[in-house]
């Protein structure tokens, strides 16, 4: 869908996913790495646990459908080459510390003079300006700053993050969406613009709007083991079962209450509770609790009833019941179970990519959506460092002799 367009991707681990999304959609994405390779290549895990810039699985995960060239932007000749590339590109993505590209003479203002139609996407921790724009960052720092961290974890321990870094993926995906908005506008105006993505603001999405709680004059939601705490109520959303854990949306009200009613019917049918427990007013149960018409001790008893029931069942049995009875239950799935899921297999989700230099193929997470007319294809495996230098630079009109000189001087 984006095959007529070229993307220059100057990002490191803070922005790689953005260009990959555009590449999945068909764009010609050129990853521009410093000589020696991107810092993302130093991130593990590594294939066979052998640290090597061409074996970083972090790199692999976010650079398919890209070609790679090396270029030293700290050198005049390197900047010169970048400007020549930028003059004909449609998108440029960068994730340098705010201000660094401008210092190199490669900021939006400079490149827009060469190519007014260029869409220039900057992905940074806190955005390009503001009092924290130059803060030192990491995934954990961003999850703290944007709000989601405070909401997850056990009551008696500090808030806890997801073990697979997430913050820059939120920012990068946001960047791809923003790029497509600007691209749509460019079709009318013929003009590009600068896009400034803040990871802090992007991860705030993961508070489920609870970042607004106090400003709406509502109570602060608090983390709690296996759920959340809202005022005096410890809402439980995760439950142990026979072979692991399940998530159950054990909530009430006009929309979710009917699901809870069906769950209680199921528990009753199997002898897990009495009829009076089954027949509570699940649509109004939150109100009953908040007005103390129902004591919280009774809600605590219900949680134990549910737990005693889930402990008798396996994840698979509970998922099966969820499908058959329309219940809000899902297994808490380990990564091997995810990869071996019959659902994902039936949809042909996992996509093998061949790595000829290793004489092996690997299964990657599949396309982010299924398009009826222009399905996403994984056309290229993640590139080796500078794998496409010759191909791309000679196309740009740089002679073999010049290339050899660039290589000697460390420009590429």
């Amino acid at each position, binding site marked *: *869908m984006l095959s007529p367009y070229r993307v220059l991707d100057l990002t490191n681990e803070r922005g790689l996913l953005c260009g990959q999304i555009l590449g999945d959609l068909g764009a010609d994405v050129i990853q521009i790495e410093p000589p020696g390779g991107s810092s993302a290549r130093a991130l593990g895990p590594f294939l066979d646990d052998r640290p090597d810039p061409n074996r970083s699985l972090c790199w692999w995960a976010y650079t398919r459908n890209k070609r790679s060239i090396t270029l030293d932007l700290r050198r005049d000749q390197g900047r010169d080459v970048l400007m020549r590339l930028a003059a004909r590109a449609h998108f440029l993505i960068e994730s340098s510390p705010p201000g660094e590209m401008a210092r190199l003479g490669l900021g939006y203002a400079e490149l827009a003079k060469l190519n007014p139609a260029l869409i220039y996407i900057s992905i940074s921790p806190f955005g390009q300006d503001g009092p924290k724009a130059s803060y030192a960052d990491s995934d954990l720092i961003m999850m703290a700053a944007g709000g989601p961290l405070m909401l997850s974890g056990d009551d008696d321990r500090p808030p806890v*993050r997801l073990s697979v870094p997430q913050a820059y*993926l939120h920012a990068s995906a*946001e960047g791809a969406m923003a790029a497509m908005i*600007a691209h749509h506008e460019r079709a009318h105006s013929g003009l590009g613009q600068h896009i400034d993505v803040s990871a802090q603001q992007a991860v*705030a999405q993961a508070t489920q709007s*609870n970042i607004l709680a106090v400003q709406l004059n*509502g109570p602060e939601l608090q983390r709690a083991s296996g759920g959340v705490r809202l005022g005096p109520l410890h809402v439980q959303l995760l439950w142990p079962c026979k072979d692991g854990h399940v998530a159950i949306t054990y909530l009430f*009200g006009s929309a979710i209450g009917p699901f809870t009613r069906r769950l209680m019917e199921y528990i009753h049918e199997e002898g897990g509770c009495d009829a009076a427990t089954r027949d509570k007013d699940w649509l109004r149960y939150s109100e009953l609790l908040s007005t103390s018409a129902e004591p919280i001790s009774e809600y605590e008893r219900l949680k134990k009833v549910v737990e005693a029931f889930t402990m008798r069942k396996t994840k698979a049995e509970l998922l099966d019941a969820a499908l058959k009875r329309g219940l809000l239950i899902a297994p808490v799935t380990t990564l091997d179970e995810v990869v071996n899921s019959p659902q994902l297999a039936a949809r042909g989700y996992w996509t093998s990519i061949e790595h000829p230099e290793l004489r092996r193929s690997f299964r990657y997470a599949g396309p*982010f959506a299924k398009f009826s007319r222009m399905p996403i294809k994984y056309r290229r495996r993640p590139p080796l460092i500078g794998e496409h230098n010759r191909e791309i630079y000679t196309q740009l009109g740089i002679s073999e002799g010049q290339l050899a000189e660039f290589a000697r001087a460390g420009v590429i």
Partner: protein
Amino acid sequence: MAELPLHDVKILDLMWVMAGPAATRVLADYGAQVIRIESSSRFDTARTISPFKNGVSHLEGSGLFLNMNTGKLGMTLNPGNAKGREVILDLVRWADVVTESFSPKAMRAWGLDYESLRKVKPDLVMLSSCLMGQTGPLSQYAGYGNLAAAIAGFVNLGGWPDRAPAGPFGAYTDYISPRFTATAILAALEYRRRTGEGQYIDQSQAEAALQFLGPAILDYTANGRVQNRGGNRDSVMAPHGVYPATGDDRWIAIACRDDRDWAVLAGAMGNPGLARDSRFATGAVRRSNQDELDRIVSGWTAGFEARALEEKLQAVSVPAHAVQNSADAATDRQLLHRRHFVELEHSTLGSITVEGTRFRLSRTPARIARAAPALGQDTHYVLEKILGYSEDRITELVASGALE
């Protein structure tokens, strides 16, 4: 004022709760005209989810609903009613894009599946979003993003290795998939602009979200290793964690990327010798002595107010940030500088606060001006001004129950 970038995009939005509406919210911020359909018997579940204005559970007071539906038109319509279906077909003729998140069965039963709709509008772009996708043994599996987060592996990866999973907070896949939803729609519109062809997009929220576990998936498919939750520890950085600060349930996140960060932190702690201590001198030994390291760092941080300590450490470029709750966010000088919060006037609630756009476009910025619609607020406007229905026709529709 510059024209908004998506001023020419018209979306009929039959999605609900968060995953779908979060995507069309962004498109509305940038000028798309979005008509959201609810029915009064089956209103959006988001309306029942906290945080609530003034903490009071009320159909119009959900901060989640208000935040997800800013800038959209809202109408009530019953797609199961024959006359309601006719109105939907007129809206399909009007729209460039139809989005929906019903179960695959429901759309076919109403005759509103892609094959039916493209007869009405041949170049339609249609996107269906559901937890597991339109096909496969779990295609009819309905639910919310907290369930997709469990089934897609996220929940198991959040929490302490010696405890039950804690997961990420809430409907985690609903935070990821909207970016892919909006991007997919815009890519399909770009393709239509060049070729005149529409298309159908089948989006599984779980599949979209799995993009965010890429390295861990490859660690299994290539190395056979099943990654598990690891608390706040990192494979490289140490110290790396969430440490106590003064006050009740107050915390600061600190991440030392390398020996320099650690030496500077040790200096800030007034104990520069720690950086040379054989237990802590290199990343590798710090990682193997983390319990002791965390105990020392915690003992020091506990004497500081989180925000003051954040500023002290950031002044020497050590990654640190107070772990912010919504009260902190409301006074976070960076979020305020970026105008992350926007005040709007709501038709029944008065003044409300929503989040602004998470990125800036330099030439054609977002316009966030209209609060989310009250249930059915724009039904008449849509019928009269957008579809051009006569008063008689509208009266007839009201009588038929199609607008309930």
